[in-house]
Structures are given as structure tokens and as C-alpha cells.
């Protein structure tokens, strides 16, 4: 039911981990639903220079986390905010319909990390 690309990202996820003193950090999802995703970003001159994730969730949740980090790394925060769950799913050669909510989480996690970054910027 999963594409080869989903299985590949699930088996060898990119950018797993946490960033110390992250510029922004976002956690979305809910263990009750079986998915929770945390994204840390490092922002330098408006560019996301590093991104790491940690995910509690199914194969699709891990694969979309991994793909989403690859898609925003090196992008400006404005570009990263354009990331949609459809784009993440398409980059993985599609997801089963019942798994589309996992790609929603990836989009929301990136957005939450950027929101957090912006909030911290405003405070400084």
C-alpha cells in the first residue's frame, strides 16, 4: 500500500534528531491519535540552514517528516511556509488516502516551527 519512496524514507529517514538552541521549534499532533511530530529549525539570514525532526507515529508519519525536512532545508522561511501537504505527499509518490492526515502533520509542524521562530524574533 505504500510507494517505494515512502518505504525508502521510512527505512532511511533524513534529518532525524534535535537542534540545540534551535531558532524555532514546533510540536503538533497528539499521541491519542497515534501521531506526534516535532520539528526544530535553524534560521540564518532568513534561510532555514538546518532542520531536524522527531516523530512518534506510523510509517507514513515518519516518511512525511523526513521528506518535509528535505523540502524546506535551504529554503527561505517564506518559501518554507508555501509547503503544502499535497506537495509532501506527491514528493513521496503519493500516500494511501487514510494516511493523508500524516502529510497534514508535516505541513503543520513546519509551520509551527516557523511561527515559533517568528515569535522569538519579535520578542528579541
Amino acid at each position: 500500500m505504500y510507494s517505494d519512496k515512502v518505504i525508502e524514507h521510512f527505512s532511511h529517514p533524513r534529518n532525524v534528531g534535535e537542534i540545540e538552541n534551535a531558532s524555532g521549534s514546533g510540536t503538533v499532533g497528539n499521541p491519542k491519535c497515534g501521531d506526534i511530530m516535532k520539528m526544530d529549525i535553524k534560521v540564518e539570514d532568513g534561510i532555514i540552514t538546518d532542520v531536524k525532526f522527531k516523530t512518534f507515529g506510523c510509517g507514513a508519519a515518519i516518511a512525511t517528516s523526513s521528506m518535509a525536512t528535505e523540502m524546506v532545508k535551504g529554503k527561505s522561511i517564506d518559501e518554507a511556509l508555501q509547503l503544502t501537504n499535497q506537495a509532501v505527499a506527491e514528493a513521496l509518490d503519493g500516500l494511501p488516502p487514510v494516511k493523508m492526515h500524516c502529510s497534514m502533520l508535516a505541513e503543520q509542524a513546519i509551520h509551527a516551527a516557523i511561527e515559533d521562530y517568528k515569535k522569538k524574533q519579535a520578542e528579541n
Partner: protein
Amino acid sequence: MNRIYLDNAATTAVAPEVLQTMLPYFTEHYGNPSSVHATGRDARKAIEEGRRQVAAAINAQPQEIYFTAGGSESDNWAIKGAAFANRKKGNHIITTAVEHHAVLHTCAWLEKQGFKVTYLPVDAEGFVTAKQVEDAITDETILITIMTANNEIGTLMPIAEIGEVAKAHKILFHTDAVQAVGAVPLDVKALNVDMLSMSGHKFHGPKGIGALYIRRGVRLDIFMQGGAQERGQRAGTENLAGIVGMGKAIELATTNLPEKAAKIAALRDRLMNGIVERIPDVRINGPKDPSRRLPNNCNVSVRYIEGESMLLRLDLAGIAASSGSACTSGSLDPSHVLLAIGLPHEVAHGSLRMTLGSDTTEADIDAVLDVLPGIVSDLRAMSVLNHETTTVSDETFACPRA
């Protein structure tokens, strides 16, 4: 890759001897059992032999065995047939919160037809007691339906004691024994059951064939209108090869059953104890007492990680298992059984069920014990949850809809 199949509660391989017995009934002895001629008579004989074999396996009479298309059909027939046949006597049914969906969804449908259903809660190991059943009985109660063995956590319900209660109150008692037949010895007379559901493919028989035991004298509504097959209760030309296969399979499965069950239970204990020794923060789901648990059932929750990701990693390593996580149930909620025994959602999502078969070897178990700890530590390293994160707030987010 050498594949290790530990999902025998989902289905089993057809035994080679069973297949050999079935094959002539597709080609050589293909007759319609209702036909008068010799070809038909051969088919009729084979069906009655299958019926005799199924009856003998559970200490019933052959005329008390009705063939169906499987366990779900047997459950549907028993419950709906008993409910409608006794509608004038009352409208109340007693069941449990941990039944298979073939029972739960049938009961829910009957509620829409005006019946009242009590879903008894279970304890932390999945048990109901005969006293709970007795306390739930009202003047309106017409049927009790409680599974013999739980398909997820292996709990063996106190069927004989519940049977006593049902008998004393003259209430029909059905049991879904789909997981128990061929796994533990069963005797319908000792258990005091009026109806018992079984399914061929759970004990190395073919798929698409099952049976319902209906105690002599018990009247149910007809399940399928049509010809006179199955004493006019379940019309349709018989699944000849399926019946032959189910008969052979149940005979093989119940021969020397106590010895075979003890051997499987020893391997299961090796697996379950091995997991607990090698992996921190795991919880055994289901009865701790091996004598009150299906011999082939191992169910554990591995904390901080999610079940489907474990299944995928195990599958990549050639090991087939199953989970009660939402991601494997096709819904967003984890298994109703794991929630009913009181597990928090995130612990239920991390469940792993491995069900052994008669062909499972010690080497298979050791291979799983070699591979699983590494998979768990990989996934834990990736997870947001750990022993320091207390239960992350439950109610702040709604589960997203797909």
C-alpha cells in the same frame, strides 16, 4: 529471504494434507450434493463426513453442525437468528466490549432494530465474570453472546461458568470460538453453549468456509432462504471442497491437541519472556496466567513508539506480525480491545501481536528476539516520546480526519 509468519490469528496456511484431501473435489468428485446420481451421492457422502469430523472435534452430533461461509457469517446467523426468533420473549442481549466486530457490529445493527444490548466491561486482563453476566440479566434477556478466546490478547473467557448461568436462567448462549477451535480443547456439552461459531482458515483449513454449532432443539430464524441445503436453514449449493478441507483440518488440529498446545505455549513464553528481558518499558497485554490465555498468543505494548512502524520494520526483516494501532485498523482509534482493558491511547497504538503456528520453531522465535530490540531502539531514537515525556496532553488537539 526466509520469512517468519507470526500472524496465525489472522489466518493460517492450508495444511498440505488438507489440500490433498480437497483437490479431488474440484475435479473428480465435483457433484452437487443435492443430485440423485452417483456423482452427487459421492459429494453428499463427503459433506456428511466433513460434518461428522467437525462435530467430533467439539463433542457435538453431526446434525448439530451447519456449514457457513466463515466465522463472520456464523456470528451473524447465531445472533440475528436468535434475536428475531425470540423477539416475542424479550429484546435484551448481553455481550462484552471486547468481542470481534462480527459480533459487535451485528449487535449494534440489532440496536437499530429496537433491541437493547449490554456491553459488559472487562478487567485489565480482558476477562468478564459469570457474576457480571448474571447481574446483567433482566426479564427481557433472550441471548448472551461472549467469545471463547479473544483474538487480540488471547484471553480465555470463563465460558463453562457463563454457560451454567445461561442454562439456569434458560437464556440462549452463543460463543464466538473462531480463535479457540484447534487451539484449545472444546466440548460444547461441558461448556453449556447453545451455539458456537468457527472458521476453517484459522486452523489450517481453507478460507471461505465456517460452521455454526446449533444445539439440537434450539430454533433460530432461517439465515438464507432458498433450497433445502443445511436442513433448510442456510440455502445454497454447499462449498464441497471447503467442507472436505475444513473437516480434515479440524480433525488434524484437534488430534493430540493438549501436547501441541503445550509445545506452542512454551515457544510463546520464550518469545514473551525474551521481549520483556531484552526491551525496557514493554507491557504484556492479556492474561499473565498462561493457562487462561490462548497458547499461541503474544501481545505486548512497546512504549513510546507506534505499532505500524514496528510492523513495517519487522516486515522488511521478513517477519509478519500485527498491531492494534489505529494505523492498522483503518480508523483513527486504536484497538477497542486494548482500550477496554484500560490502556492509554498512546500505549495501545504501540501494541504488537505475534501469533504462533504449529510450524513455528525455536529458531524463528530467536530470530525475532535478535531483530526486535534493534528495531525498537531505532524507532525510539526517532520518537518524540520517551520515559521523560509524561503523557502528552490528550485533549488539546482533535485527531485530524483523513
